């Protein structure tokens, strides 16, 4: 482990420079998809019924309506996993005879304005013969339940199992077995910008430009072209400014396929902007899981075996490109988390129901599995009569490298160190006294800890282990210094709020000695950026940052070689800084801009020893690493109303080298706020017929400034050898730890009632129901 002093030896990395993205965004000059004008506007007619057979679709005479019968030449969306008994199922672009969830698009109406298209869609009459809807994961597994897709017997679409050798023997040796029945309700990532698409046909070239709110422009192009059956050269995909994604905008939207198809048919421009109701009912959901978790402990409170049955309600279809396996299989792979346990038994199933499809959302599965195992740890601590932190001390991994029972290699981690920082910062002994005093006054304070690992920066080998037909991983960066001396980095990643234009510029700046303000990072345009996977999975800074560093190192080497020629000095005597190449120990220098000009316009001076131009490519595909953190929440529960107030929230995290502390803190803040929403507020609710009851932001409740306390952040920077930038990535961590910390704190506050709240969100209703059932309310 290397101690790191921020800013030492480097210039830009480690500094909280202001974001290069911001001036446009604070002046109203951001360019979002919905800002584009179009000739035709599309409104989707969506199913008001969860399950049924379409009997008729009737539109006013002459109305412009597209239905499945117009799209016979299009393939369905049908992502594939080659492992885990995955059953491929197809999702038609428009429902074809059958509807499988409330909100599923059945027809597309188009007109000259948004309003007219909406009016037209309202006049389309769809008659559906309703059939029994399956809404709940476990109920869809009951024998004799109707099938959502005929090909998936028992409604199981994916199933992973593991049982480590000798598991039973270890299990039988247990001193105590603790159990948690953890239930995470459904969520919606709810980016503030709902989805939108705009497809414009160019009659001169026959090409379509699809501008849309995607996190993966290149994959969107591949998928849309495959479905429609056109070469990729005929489609350009642009992700302009995108108003948050959090995973929801990673998965392919059927709506985009329809737009491209319609733009080609009309030879014109067509646009769709999703309204908030559509977004809440029919974009993508997440986190709907039941986990039955049991932990076997020895007499010393050491976890010796872990057993779990995981049911993920993945909805009606499988999302592209990850497939719906992403939630259950990540739970299977990473459930043991930061704990040292080698005996592991787990079954994880993805179950089809008549609900909106699930897709990745910040943290993907880990907010749920962290919640489950952290509840287990707190229950075990209570059973052993020790502080939850003491139980964790006895179980957290502290020897590295560590191989998990699923074969994941933990290169390094500071699980104990971050927890000790948190314990000290929150002053646990003082809190316990305060808690006792408060309780004598009828106030219920509680503290909750959550320690977790966040797998980050992984390349294609990690994705390949999942058996994905489409195996993401690597990223490429094209770095150019143009004749004017200006630097352009074209990247395959597709940031949408993460500040990558700034952080990548910082990484490149240190390598080539040019101020970040002269480095422009170009992304989100398949015509201008190299093929890449986009921005998701806490990966962009590590992957695109690594590729940027590789490209910048090559440019640096070339600049030094050129300077060596131009200054007639040995390369090892040259350094690049402040926009020039300097001869060390002298006042001789040459501006990089001058060399850039020469690289294009004076190539003869290099006598054929240096290739013309100043462009280099870097590609990076690492094995991956783990960030880690300890989250600590202090809450107060009002036992009369069930209301929870988060009074304090503290994060002690370690994500390796921090490139821009201001931006890194912002990522943690945002993740924690989403995690607090996950724990207390946000829930997509279906009634038993599959009708959705939370279709406005007054029903589905993202937190406001009132619900989020001031967040206290502590950083460790353990430099990983597993990435070339020494950075690990931390985009998701905030959302992973916060739910568990808050729920543990609530349970700690209510410990005298002997209840266990193991369901998220812990709404006032659920807390009151638990308190009433305790029989201990006065």
């Amino acid at each position, binding site marked *: 482990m290397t101690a790191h002093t921020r800013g030492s030896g480097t210039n830009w990395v480690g500094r909280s420079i202001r974001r290069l993205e911001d001036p446009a965004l604070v002046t109203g000059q951001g360019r979002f998809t*919905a800002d584009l004008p179009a000739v035709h506007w599309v409104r989707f007619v969506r199913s008001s019924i969860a399950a049924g057979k379409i009997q008729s679709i009737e539109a006013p005479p002459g109305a412009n309506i597209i239905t499945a019968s117009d799209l016979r030449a299009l393939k369905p969306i049908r992502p594939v996993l080659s492992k885990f008994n995955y059953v491929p199922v197809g999702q038609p672009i428009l429902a074809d005879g059958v509807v499988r969830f409330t909100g599923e698009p059945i027809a597309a109406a188009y007109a000259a304005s948004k309003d007219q298209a909406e009016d037209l869609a309202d006049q389309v009459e769809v008659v559906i013969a309703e059939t029994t809807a399956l809404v709940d994961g476990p109920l869809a597994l009951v024998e004799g339940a109707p099938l959502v897709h005929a090909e998936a017997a028992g409604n199981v679409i994916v199933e992973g199992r593991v049982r480590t050798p000798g598991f039973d023997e270890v299990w039988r040796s247990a001193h105590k077995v603790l159990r948690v029945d953890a239930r995470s309700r459904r969520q919606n990532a709810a980016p503030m910008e709902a989805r939108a698409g705009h497809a414009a046909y160019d009659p001169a070239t026959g090409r379509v430009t699809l501008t849309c709110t995607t996190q993966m422009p290149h994959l969107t192009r591949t998928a849309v072209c495959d479905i429609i059956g056109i070469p990729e050269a005929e489609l350009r995909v642009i992700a302009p400014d995108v108003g948050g994604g*959090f995973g929801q905008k990673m998965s392919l939207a059927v709506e985009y396929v329809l737009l491209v198809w319609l733009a080609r048919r009309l030879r014109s421009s067509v646009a769709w902007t999703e309204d908030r109701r559509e977004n809440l009912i029919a974009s993508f959901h997440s986190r709907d899981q039941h986990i039955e978790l049991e932990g076997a402990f020895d007499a010393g409170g050491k976890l010796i075996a872990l057993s779990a049955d995981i049911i993920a309600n993945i909805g009606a279809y499988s999302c592209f490109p990850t497939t719906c396996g992403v939630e259950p299989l990540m739970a299977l792979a990473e459930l043991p988390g930061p704990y040292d346990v080698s005996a592991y038994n787990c079954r994880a199933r993805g179950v089809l129901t008549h609900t909106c499809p699930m897709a990745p959302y910040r943290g993907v599965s880990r907010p749920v599995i962290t919640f489950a195992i952290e509840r287990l740890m707190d229950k075990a601590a209570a059973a052993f009569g020790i502080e939850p932190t003491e139980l964790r001390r006895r179980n957290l991994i502290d020897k590295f490298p560590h191989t998990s029972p699923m074969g994941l290699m933990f290169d390094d981690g500071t699980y104990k160190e971050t927890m000790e920082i948190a314990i000290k910062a929150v002053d646990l002994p003082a809190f316990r006294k305060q808690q006792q005093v408060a309780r004598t006054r009828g106030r219920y304070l509680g503290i909750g800890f959550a320690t977790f690992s966040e797998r980050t920066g992984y390349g294609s080998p990690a994705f390949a282990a999942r058996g994905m037909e489409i195996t993401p991983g690597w990223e490429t960066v094209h770095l150019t210094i143009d004749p004017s001396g200006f630097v352009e980095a074209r990247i395959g990643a597709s940031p949408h709020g993460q500040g990558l234009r700034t952080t990548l510029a910082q990484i490149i700046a240190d390598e080539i000695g040019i101020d970040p303000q002269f480095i422009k990072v170009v992304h989100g345009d398949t015509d201008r950026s190299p093929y890449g996977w986009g921005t998701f999975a806490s990966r962009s800074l590590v992957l695109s940052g690594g590729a940027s560093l590789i490209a910048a190192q090559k440019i640096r080497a070339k600049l030094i070689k050129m300077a060596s020629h131009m200054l007639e000095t040995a390369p090892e005597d040259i350094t690049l800084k402040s926009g020039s190449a300097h001869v060390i120990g002298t006042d001789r220098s040459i501006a990089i801009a001058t060399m850039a000009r020469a690289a294009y316009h004076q190539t003869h001076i290099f006598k054929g020893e240096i290739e013309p131009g100043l462009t280099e490519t870097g590609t990076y595909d690492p094995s991956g690493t783990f960030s880690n953190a300890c989250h600590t929440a202090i809450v107060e529960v009002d036992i009369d109303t069930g209301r929870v107030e988060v009074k304090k929230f503290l994060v002690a995290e370690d994500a390796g080298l921090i490139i821009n502390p201001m931006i890194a803190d912002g990522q943690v803040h*945002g993740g924690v706020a989403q995690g607090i929403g996950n724990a207390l507020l946000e829930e997509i609710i279906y009634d038993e017929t599959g009708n959705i009851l939370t279709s*406005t*932001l007054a029903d589905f409740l993202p937190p406001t400034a009132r619900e989020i306390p001031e967040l206290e952040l502590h950083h460790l920077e353990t430099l990983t050898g597993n990435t070339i930038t020494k950075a690990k990535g931390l985009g998701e961590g905030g959302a992973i730890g916060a739910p568990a910390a808050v729920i543990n704190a609530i349970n700690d506050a209510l410990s005298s009632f002997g209840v266990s709240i193991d369901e998220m969100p812990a709404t006032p209703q659920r807390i009151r129901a638990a308190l009433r059932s305790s029989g201990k309310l006065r």
Partner: protein
Amino acid sequence: MSDKLDITLNINGRDYAIRVESRRTLVDAIREECGQTGTHIGCEHGVCGACTVIVAGEPVRSCLMFAEQAAGKPIRTVEGLATGDTMHPMQRAFMENHGLQCGFCTPGFLMLAVGVLEREPEISDEDLVDVLSSNLCRCTGYQNIIKAVRAAAAEMRRS
């Protein structure tokens, strides 16, 4: 719904003579008829506040107001916050304090905060959090928005 009204919207000091249906919301008219797309639409039901603009000195949710209701009243949007190349202290404070990430909710927060501080320059820190809780942000966890608005409030009081 085909009866259209001729109205004039005054946005950032400039008159826009437009013809709209009576059902046209102010935000749609600002964005589409007047081409000022800096104001964003987040929910169209008055919860998220992304569409907040200042009408006759008051921050309003422009998705809950008809364009016709704002006719003849001075409307301010994010495009009018800066004076030439000089940014408003609130814009600078958002950049300096990392009060934005994706930037989609930002125009609404800027107009909300500016509108409230112009009306109530001495507003307490606590009341300010209450005011800011009327808009939603999904990226920042509000930490740096609150910090930015407090910093701008202090600067606006000084000037």
